[in-house]
């Protein structure tokens, strides 16, 4: 079973072999390191850039305009804030030129808490990202989605932001969610594609013959069907929602968990169908709560589905504080935890209108 980060690497490999990816680049992306999370090890198009986020994004835009197919990386999304105007530029190239140009590029960056990354390695980016029109934005929570969304991102004619939840990078998917063509035995896969420790100058990966699987951008996935209450989430908090759902199942509360997977465009029909069924909904993510993407979804729910609701819709998000503190208690107090998600869903389910 591939981990989420191995799935990204496999998709990038397929991208450069079969779908025209020309450049996979950013700080420490090329050899010998192959990415601080191993996401670009062994890829023949991977190269190291200067430590310059503006240059990285600008270069990706220019490569895209020149008909290349770049996948650029910002090492941590916390370091993306000095190039936000370039996100506006990339997102506006097609629109501002009235369709004269398009800008086919992928920008990937690890996001979120969960590795005790303190103030500058724990930030989320979904609230910022969804503020920039013209970008497609995806955020997987399983290896198979990570694989299929990356391939869709590579094939899309628009700029696509690929937010990788760093806490889930080492996690594996369910058994039935195997990438077609990956080895049965995870140790075999690791031996084939993970770079050895120490000297890697002679090392070459042995890529398994994985098949194309496209996860369409804009399509949510129902991770768990339920009838009593809906939780709409993405990224790391999908796993938190699933924990809460399992806990509540023991109390005969049946939770429906929707992994949005794409934030732009997002799957409103999936949300709407679930809310019409359960009539109770919680939006869950870990970005700071003021002007949060979940707030937008909640607003739309209130405006369009108000008379379907049997309980006030909820938003669970990160505390609106300047950073995520290093100490365990500080991080836990900053982003939604399973106990809080569980109690919130319980209250929603039991709410009497």
């Amino acid at each position, binding site marked *: 079973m591939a981990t989420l980060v191995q799935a990204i690497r496999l998709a990038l490999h397929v991208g*450069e072999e079969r779908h025209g990816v020309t450049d996979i680049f950013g700080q420490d992306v090329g050899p010998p390191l192959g990415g601080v999370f191993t996401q670009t090890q062994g890829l023949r198009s991977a190269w190291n850039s200067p430590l310059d986020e503006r240059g990285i994004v*600008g270069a990706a835009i*220019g490569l895209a*305009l020149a008909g290349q197919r770049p996948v650029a990386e910002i090492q941590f999304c916390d370091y993306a804030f000095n190039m936000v105007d*370039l996100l506006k530029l990339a997102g506006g190239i097609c629109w501002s030129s009235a*369709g*004269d140009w398009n800008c086919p590029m992928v920008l990937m960056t690890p996001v979120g808490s969960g590795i005790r990354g303190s103030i500058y390695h724990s930030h989320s980016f979904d609230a910022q990202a969804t503020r920039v029109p013209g970008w497609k934005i995806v955020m997987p929570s399983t290896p198979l989605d990570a694989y299929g969304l990356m391939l869709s991102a590579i094939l899309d004619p628009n700029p696509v932001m690929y937010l990788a939840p760093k806490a889930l990078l080492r996690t594996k998917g369910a058994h039935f969610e195997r990438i077609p063509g990956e080895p049965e035995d995870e140790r075999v896969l690791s031996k084939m594609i993970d770079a050895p420790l120490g000297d890697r100058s002679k090392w070459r990966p042995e890529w398994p013959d994985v098949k194309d699987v496209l996860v369409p951008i804009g399509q949510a996935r129902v991770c768990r069907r339920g009838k009593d209450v809906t939780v709409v989430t993405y990224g790391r908090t999908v796993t938190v929602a699933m924990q809460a759902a399992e806990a509540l199942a023991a109390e005969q509360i049946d939770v429906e968990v929707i992994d949005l997977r794409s934030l732009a465009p997002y799957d409103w029909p999936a949300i709407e169908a679930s809310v019409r069924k359960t009539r109770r909904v919680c939006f869950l993510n870990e970005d700071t709560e003021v002007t949060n993407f979940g707030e937008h979804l909640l607003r739309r729910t209130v405006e369009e589905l108000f008379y379907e609701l049997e309980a006030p819709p909820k938003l669970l998000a990160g505390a609106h504080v300047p950073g995520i503190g290093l100490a365990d208690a500080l991080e836990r107090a900053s982003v939604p935890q399973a106990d809080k998600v569980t109690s919130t869903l319980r209250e929603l389910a039991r709410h009497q209108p």
Partner: protein
Amino acid sequence: MISTIPRDPGGAEESALSPELLVRLHDRMLLSRCLEERLIRMNKQGDGFFWVGGPGEEALNTALGLLVHKGQGPAFDYLHLHYRSTATLLAMGAEPIDTLRQMKNTATDPYSAGRNFCNHYSVRKWNVAPVSSPIEVQFSMAIGTAIAQRRTGGTGITVVQGGDAGTAEGDFSSCLVWCSRPSFELPCLMIIANNRWGISTPASEMHAERNIADRGAPFGIKSAVVDGNDAESCYRALEKAMDYVRHERRPFLLEAMVSRLYGHSSASGANFVPDEPDCLVLFEKKLEERRILTRTAMDELRAKYTQQLLEASKRVREEPQPRGEEIWKHVFAEKDVVREGLGPRAVTRNGTH
């Protein structure tokens, strides 16, 4: 490393430009000036919300437009211009009425369909990347097209142009850094049109270096300073610089000392500035002295262009404005027009960039 290209001592030099070329330079410079004057008048008459443009940069920008290898894709020159590049576009063959259309933000504006300010060009078939109002971002984008051209080889180069004030931004440094990395030098010509102003702030309050061209030296980037008010010097300096970048496949930094003849934009009144040298007046004087064109012929040409542009502006006034519902068009590209425009053989896949 710095070579100051001397001004033409008076026409006796062996590399004198042909009379036909001088007439062509003059024609496009004059047309560009007449167009700017028409734009300013349109703005003052209420036919267009804002004017910004390049009166005073015609000598430099016309020469650039005439020297560009015009076409689509990495085999030709990429242009990352600024909003004072009117003369470059006209010298390349752009229709002046299209600039009037953008001024009047009509639906027929081919550069942005009424979305952007005047002189914000975008011409994919000529590799003119969309011009945007930020004065620095083109230096980041240029890195990408230059990487593509380093990879594809040939003689296509990347040309990026900005003003002196914009060199304070990090993007200019990014371009210097990325273009000069050892063993990875990029075929990029950086042109700084130094008018000694940043809107209302004089150069003395912005930077200490004597010449901006000096900033190439620590990176090993060859550079030159040219009198941007002398059309022949500009042509020769650009020819030399472009030839170097084209064939050596290395970067070059060219600084042209130019005038800003109508101030920063309509926001500062767009009134003629009498105390700065006028490249068109100087060039016409020289052409008259050398008996290449008569005063009468040049006056008649000016009257003709002025009249033609007046009539064109009246036509543009009658053209349709975009409709409000069109804001939703081109948020996303439906097709990969960039790659389709290049044909199947244009993209090189090469892992070693």
